[in-house]
């Protein structure tokens, strides 16, 4: 597994976006970090961005198009088959967790906040800090 170089953070909360980005940069300054406020914006970013993300950090509770709706659409369109999706939610409810595992593209489920120790497994590669 090669090391991820581009991450898309999908979260409607700027504070959470900031925290995720900060944690990612602390881990790997070279990472390209894209952001989106909800599912719809995330789909637009995926379509338009010059550099496609290897990893998508996906919040569940969002306006307009939430995480589950995004996953349905993502799977339906089969946009980036090799991209890893990590659900990053403030909910540790079993229902929320199991609601996302039915999607093949979801690799991990992380309860907020995102911490540095989560990253090696998520980002992959040998160069663990």
């Amino acid at each position, binding site marked *: 597994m090669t090391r991820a170089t581009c991450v898309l953070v999908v979260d*409607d*909360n*700027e*504070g*959470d976006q*900031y*925290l995720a980005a*900060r944690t990612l940069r602390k881990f790997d300054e070279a990472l390209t970090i894209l952001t989106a*406020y*909800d599912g719809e914006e995330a789909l637009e970013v995926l379509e338009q961005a010059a550099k496609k993300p290897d990893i998508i950090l996906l919040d569940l*509770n*969002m*306006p*307009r198009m939430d995480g589950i709706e995004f996953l349905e659409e993502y799977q339906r369109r089969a946009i980036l088959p090799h991209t890893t999706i990590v659900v990053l939610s*403030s*909910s540790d*409810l079993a229902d929320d967790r199991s609601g996302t595992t039915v999607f093949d593209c979801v690799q991990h489920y992380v309860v*907020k*906040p995102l911490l540095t120790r989560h990253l090696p497994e998520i980002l992959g590669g040998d160069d663990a800090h």
Partner: protein
Amino acid sequence: MQIATLTRFAAITIVTLTAITVTLLVGMRTTLQEELAILRTEAEFRQLGNDLAAASDLLTREARYYSVGGDRTHYDAFWREVNETRTRDNVVARLRELGAPPEELALIEEAKANSDALIATESAAFAAVADGDFERARSLMFGPAYDRDKEIIMAPIRDFEERMNSRLLGEVAEAREEVNRALFLTTGTVLAYVIVTLSLLFLLFIRRVTVPLTRITDALDDVAAGEPDIAIPYTDGKDEIGSLAKAAAAFKSTLEQNRELARALIEHRDHLEDEVAARTTALTDANTELAEFAYRTSHDLRAPIVSSARLLSVVEESIRDEDPQEALTSLGYARTALDRLDKLLQDILALVKVERLEEDAEWIRLDDVLREALQRASHLEGFERLSVELDLGHDDPLLLKRSRLEVVTDNLISNAVKYQNPEQPSPHLRIETREDEAGVHVIVRDNGLGIPVEQQDKVFGMFKRFHPRTSFGSGLGLYLVKKSAEVLGGTMSFEDLGDGSLFRLTLGPPGEAT
């Protein structure tokens, strides 16, 4: 007329007619017997007349034989007739017995009286024979004197016969007439008897019973088959058929009432089922909403706290790393998160108040409430960019719960302020009140961002946010508006204007808003 009365009348008529007919038949028989008797009498009268004439002729004949030959046999025969047979006396006696009229008897008496002269002649002839003077005897018996004397006897007898004959002919004709009359009367009566009996039977059983019964039965068959608008015939009859028809009509009416009742029951049952289904749906919806509310609040309350705690850790790290910029940024985000938490808590509190708060309705003028709401909104960021237009046509006081109405007006106005379209050169807000047959309307329209078409069905839903980048909202504002409208006894509706939104609060039909 009652059939029983009619039947009784018919029976009496038939019995009377039978009695009359029997009487007439008996009378007929008597009349015939009388006629027979008259005929017999007539025959006897004729016989008596003949006997009388024959007896006279016998006497003349025997006397003449004796006067010619002197044969004693004729002499004896003559006297036997005169003294023993006495035909004339017997005839007279019999005529008296038969009640012959006196004038006829008088004629016989006359003949008898006239016979004395003849008997004297005959006695002289017999004396001459006894003397052997046959010449004289013959001249006496065959002379013109004898014939003359004989004639004065026979004339009354013939007269008698004639009178008797003519009388008898009259009596017989009268008897015949009587018989004919009786026959005519009897025949007529029997004919009348037959006609009346048959007519009564026809009237009773065909017209009054059989035909009505058939028609009533047919009508009942139709009623039983469920055919509508069947009228039972003969219900206005005064007889038993009328009673039967009335009973049938009552039965029909009961049957129809029962059918109606069954229909009503089925309808009622269906209605109940519908109502139960509707209430079940409403309850299920409420439960779902409550579960979603619990889930969403627990999440949305926790999320900013988790974020803030982490951000505060970042602040701490930054201070250690002597990176004040980072510390300030993190604090800024923490503040935003906590502000949102505060806003969310306020909205939840407002929601609880909307649903739980005991509040008395008061007389409110809509224009007052709207002007106060605008006054409160005037402190919001961006309000100064909006051109506000008021068309407050409704100025009658309404009996309403003030805080609920304020939740509606404040949220609608603040939404118009917060979600302006940045590309719109002249953002505006128009507030209108008016009344029509549907009720009192409060209409808030703007040319702001509007609601995305695909989300318009959830516009009044819980935790629905449509413009997360433009302004933070708890997602409870329009939900609060809808709940408040319900408490006010009104309804909320949304119209997409293409370049903006129109929200309409309709407060029931006039006079029903609370």
